């Protein structure tokens, strides 16, 4: 057994919910987005309705998630029940320092052993921090294409910035592929070394493993979840 123990503290309930909302909304958005771009008979009305609804939901969810990060506490690393304010786990942590290149080396098979890390590794942090920016960008580009909002001053300004509605559509369309690529990588990396992280994220199912001390930044023991540490 090589991985750290998976405790509920890593993913508090509010974040499990926002993650579920993200997943459902994103899948609906991608499917309906394709249906709008490559229309099939009879689906346009409902596809547009769901697309606009989910677009608003994912944006609100993103904002809620960002705000919650300042109020809800979560574990700064795997293998611990200690908690800190969640936003701190998104910023550079001492556990991450100098470990970025090590992660890249590990994934490129140039490093044999698993790098020590915080809850989120360096590449993970960077890509996860991009997602809220992307969601907001997709929301804005979406508003610029949606008739009720497209003629607002802000959307007109954005449209002028990118060179018109067609360019905005192409950007919105490319943005979806960025999400698809992110999802591929995200799902792959989350599950390639075992499905325990997924079970924890979606169903809050804990799993035993090594114990990590976030203050000493080292592995300090093992927890088999049989009541004794």
């Amino acid at each position, binding site marked *: 057994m090589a991985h750290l123990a998976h405790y509920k503290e890593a993913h508090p309930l509010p974040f499990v919910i926002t993650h579920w909302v993200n997943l459902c909304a994103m899948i609906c958005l991608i499917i309906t987005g394709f249906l709008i771009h490559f229309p099939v008979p009879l689906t346009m009305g409902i596809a547009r309705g769901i697309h606009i609804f989910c677009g608003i939901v994912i944006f609100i969810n993103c904002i809620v998630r960002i705000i919650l990060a300042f109020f809800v506490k979560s574990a700064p690393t795997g293998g611990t029940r200690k908690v800190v304010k969640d936003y701190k786990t998104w910023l550079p942590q001492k556990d991450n320092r100098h470990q970025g290149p090590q992660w890249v080396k590990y994934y490129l098979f140039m490093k044999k052993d698993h790098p*020590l890390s915080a809850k989120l590794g360096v590449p993970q942090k960077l890509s996860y921090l991009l997602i809220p920016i992307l969601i907001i960008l997709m929301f804005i580009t979406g508003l610029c294409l949606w008739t009720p909002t497209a003629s607002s001053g802000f959307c007109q300004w954005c449209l002028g910035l990118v060179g018109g509605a067609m360019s905005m559509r192409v950007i919105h*369309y490319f943005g979806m592929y960025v999400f698809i690529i992110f999802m591929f990588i995200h799902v792959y990396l989350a599950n390639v070394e075992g499905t325990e992280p997924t079970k924890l994220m979606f169903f809050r199912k804990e799993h035993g493993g090594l114990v990590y001390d976030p203050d000493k930044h080292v592995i300090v023991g093992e927890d088999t979840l049989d009541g004794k540490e």
Partner: protein
Amino acid sequence: MSESTATYGLVDVLAARGISRRSFLKFCGTLAVAAGLSSAAAPRVANALETELENAKGGLFPVLWIEGASCTGCTESFAQIETPDVGKVVLELIALNYSDVLCAGAGHSLERAKEETIQNGNYVVVYEGGITQGFGSNTLRVAMETGEEILVHAAENAAAVIALGSCAVNGGWMAAYPNPAEATGVSAILKKHGIATPVVNMPGCPANPEWLMSVLVQVLMLGGAGALVEGNIPAVVSTLGLNDEAKPQGIYGQTIHDNCERRPHFENGEFVYEFGSKEEELGYCLYPLGCKGPQTKANCGVTMWNNRRSWCIQAGSPCIGCCEANPNDPGDNWVEVNTPFYKRDRDLHIGSTFFRPTTVAAGLTGIVAAALIIHGFGMKKSGRMDGGADFEKVRAWDAKNPDKAIGQYEYSVMDGDPVKMKAAQEEIAKQYEVAEEASAEEEGR
């Protein structure tokens, strides 16, 4: 243009041409609607026309129609107005003092007429076509003046310039890739030369003649464009209802899609996927065939063409978005952004290499997916699938910099043995030293 025209009332002129007061008012109502007003404004329009024409200096309101880099399609479209027609009558009451295409006169006499009109002031310029800046603008040379000089000279003293057609707005066809003639629109040229004459942008390929008519009438309603001359630009803008791109909002405020007669089929998901199919026969929505209606702003579906007889969509063609023209952005040019016409999105290009957005995006996604699958085999081969590799005993950086180490390894019970731990730490540090020496040697060579 004769004085007798001015001394007779408009009603008399119309009556002489067999047009009743009733049909004149009906026409004014149409113009009002095309101009974005309520049809209740018809009497106001009629009054403006009558008063303006009766009081006009020299009898008629002078208009100079200048051709730039154009196909004269806008003139052609304009000339297709049927006769006898109220619209034609009204336009005959406007003094078209100069038109390359329509004027019977030519040569010095025509140029002199133009020059006199410019000196007298209070006229409107209708500019059709793009302006080529390349080749010293000599491609548009007429009467010893280059294209740019002609526009600048005519615009300087004008009450307003109407940029008619997409080419005049931002270059249109003329400015499409690779644009060797460096064509651009009227606004850009006037801005370049610091001329503040107001511009009214009326894109379209061609622009609908009734749109031009409605704008000319609105200019008349402003009192011979007097307000423009007085420099009360904000008042003019609000009266003409121009948007940020100086287009009349009543005409260019909504999309083709908003007022499309096939819109219900779009909402129901009933589409034409192929020309000649049963769906086409049923008059379904042309969206999958590349209709640019959802993003093109114009009221074609309301005004229609050829005296409200039909329009592109009714005739069975997807909208090709000919009214897309941003005067502030030559790149937002309808030919540039709307081709290929029968595809949902534009072609992109890097240099002279063109590609489809879907090809690039789906291709990239496919490459990532393939890379992940290959990576997965690597993970399996290296035995990392089951919980990943074992953790490093010491962070690589810590091993190199033991004095600044992040982890407090003396507490570590890795393998349950602090002695083993320390040995491991030293071992890794030694490996790094060896590696560093090797690389230093490499560099030395």
